[in-house]
């Protein structure tokens, strides 16, 4: 059955619609627009500002002129610029012209600036001036460089760079298969789009996360101490948001109190302040709760006998949980989760599914006191046919050790420790 191809991508469940060719063409057009806009604005800035300024400083001929009269010129928007009528001689021929003071001849909203310049020139007096040998009627009374004539060039250059790169990409990939593009980009030394990629990959385990990032910390009892996945930065981020939010509450609150003191009674500001205060109180409660949890539920240490792990391998795990609390339920688990990110319109969404969970340690109803941490040792067996850790641009398979607890008078807590399980090699399989 014939169907029109969608020119835009759309994710429907597990299927993404849309035309790759139309997508590439749209990207090419977008880049071409940027590139063209950059070229046009570069030419405009060069011709209007940069080159005239350069020529005024290098090519204009110096002479002495007599001031005849002055005036303030204005454009349709009311911006002003100074204009000075001068008389001077070029090759023994007398010339009279209106000078715009400098070569930029820019109209400025600040009228005081124009007046200040005009005060410098009095009719009948003489001063230095510079005229264009190509067009003697173009004359300036001031030379020098303005920052905007040169700094403004950065904008079109950025447009040309981005647009040019996009356009080059569109041209280079046009009519080429996704496999050919991928093969070329994966093999960066191969730039001619013709040679095949090497058959053997450079990495021993492609698309398996690097385990060495997790092997930084040696353990006290076992080989490695695992790094917690739930980092301290999340508490720090809450602290920053809490501080900024409540600073805004203080500033607007002070403005509101002052308005009522002065008898102005700004009710709109008071109304705007209500949700702001509620948000501030909520962020403060969240931050204090985090601090109390961190103080009472002490650090969790997990150590492992070897890393990365291999399917079919058996490993030792050591756990230490400090704190001052009464624990209702405590679990140490080996977990595997699938993670997928996908675009829905302008949003990026994430989906997670747990596909493996095995309890390694499970305890109920015990107390933790200061200086007496809860310690446990366990054996971890990775199933022989387990999927290895996998990490690509939008999809991941994550293995981790999860420590979860239900405690009295406190919300439950969960701390994760990422691990890497790499696939078995052919040699290992045969051994």
């Amino acid at each position, binding site marked *: 059955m014939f169907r029109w191809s969608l020119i835009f991508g759309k994710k429907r469940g597990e299927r993404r619609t849309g035309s790759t060719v139309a997508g590439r063409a749209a990207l090419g057009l977008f880049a071409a627009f940027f590139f063209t806009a950059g070229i046009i604005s570069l030419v405009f800035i060069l011709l209007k500002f940069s080159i005239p300024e350069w020529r005024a400083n290098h090519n204009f001929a110096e002479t002495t002129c007599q001031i005849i009269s002055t005036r303030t010129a204005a454009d349709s928007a009311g911006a002003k610029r100074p204009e000075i009528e001068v008389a001077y001689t070029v090759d023994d021929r007398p010339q009279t012209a209106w000078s715009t003071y400098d070569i930029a001849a820019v109209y400025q909203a600040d009228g005081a600036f124009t007046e200040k310049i005009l005060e410098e020139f009095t009719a009948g007096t003489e001063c230095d001036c510079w005229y264009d040998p190509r067009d003697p009627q173009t004359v300036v009374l001031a030379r020098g460089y303005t920052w905007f004539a040169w700094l403004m060039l950065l904008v079109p250059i950025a447009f040309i760079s981005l647009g040019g790169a996009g356009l080059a990409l569109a041209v280079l990939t046009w*009519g080429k298969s996704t496999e050919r593009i991928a093969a070329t980009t994966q093999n960066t030394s191969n730039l001619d789009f013709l040679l095949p990629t090497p058959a053997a990959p450079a990495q021993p*385990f492609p*698309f398996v996360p690097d385990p060495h990032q997790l092997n930084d910390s040696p353990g006290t009892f076992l080989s490695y101490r695992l790094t917690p996945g739930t980092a301290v930065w999340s508490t720090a981020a809450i602290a920053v948001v809490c501080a900024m939010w409540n600073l805004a509450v203080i500033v607007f609150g002070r403005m509101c109190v002052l308005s009522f003191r002065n008898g102005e009674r700004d009710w709109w500001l008071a109304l705007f302040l209500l949700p702001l205060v509620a948000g501030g109180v909520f962020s403060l409660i969240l931050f204090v709760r985090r601090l109390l949890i961190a103080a009472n539920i002490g650090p969790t240490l997990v150590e492992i006998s070897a890393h990365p792990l291999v399917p079919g391998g058996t490993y030792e795990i050591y756990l230490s949980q400090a704190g001052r609390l009464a624990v209702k339920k405590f679990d140490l688990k080996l977990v595997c989760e699938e993670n997928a990110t996908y675009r829905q319109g302008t949003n990026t969404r994430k989906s997670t*599914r*747990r596909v493996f969970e095995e309890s390694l340690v499970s305890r109920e109803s015990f107390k933790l006191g200061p200086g007496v941490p809860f310690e446990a040792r366990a054996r971890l067996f990775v199933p022989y046919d387990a999927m290895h850790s*996998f990490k690509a641009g*939008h999809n991941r398979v994550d293995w981790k050790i999860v420590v979860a607890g239900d405690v009295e008078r406190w919300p439950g807590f969960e701390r994760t420790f990422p691990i890497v399980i790499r696939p078995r090699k052919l040699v290992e399989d045969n051994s």
Partner: protein
Amino acid sequence: MTLAELNLSFHDERTEFAPGETLTAEYFAGESCSAEVEALEISVLWFTEGKGDEDFAVHYFQRTETSEAAPVDFRQPRQFSTMLPNSPLSYDGVILRIRWCVRLRAFLTRGKQLVEQRTFRLGNVPVARAVLP
């Protein structure tokens, strides 16, 4: 013109491989379309299916072009071999699937393309099931 005009087959008709094993396949263009073929691309690649946006990577790629100076008879069977990598293994998850395949793409005159694909399994990871809370 139909997809059957591109022929792609695995050596010994194997469709399951272990990491590090060598995959051998044979391909050629059919009699009716071979005159129109300007180039053939053979690739071994993996791609993801499921809830997330697609990821894919090419493990092996080879392009054969014909020209007046060096004409190629695409009706002649061509064989290629590649040693398969250690990862990623084929995977049937709940929201993620990793598929390996050999893909043959023919570029015809007037900008048309034909694609023939054969999937295979790398490794023996069983189907995953969601853990209920």
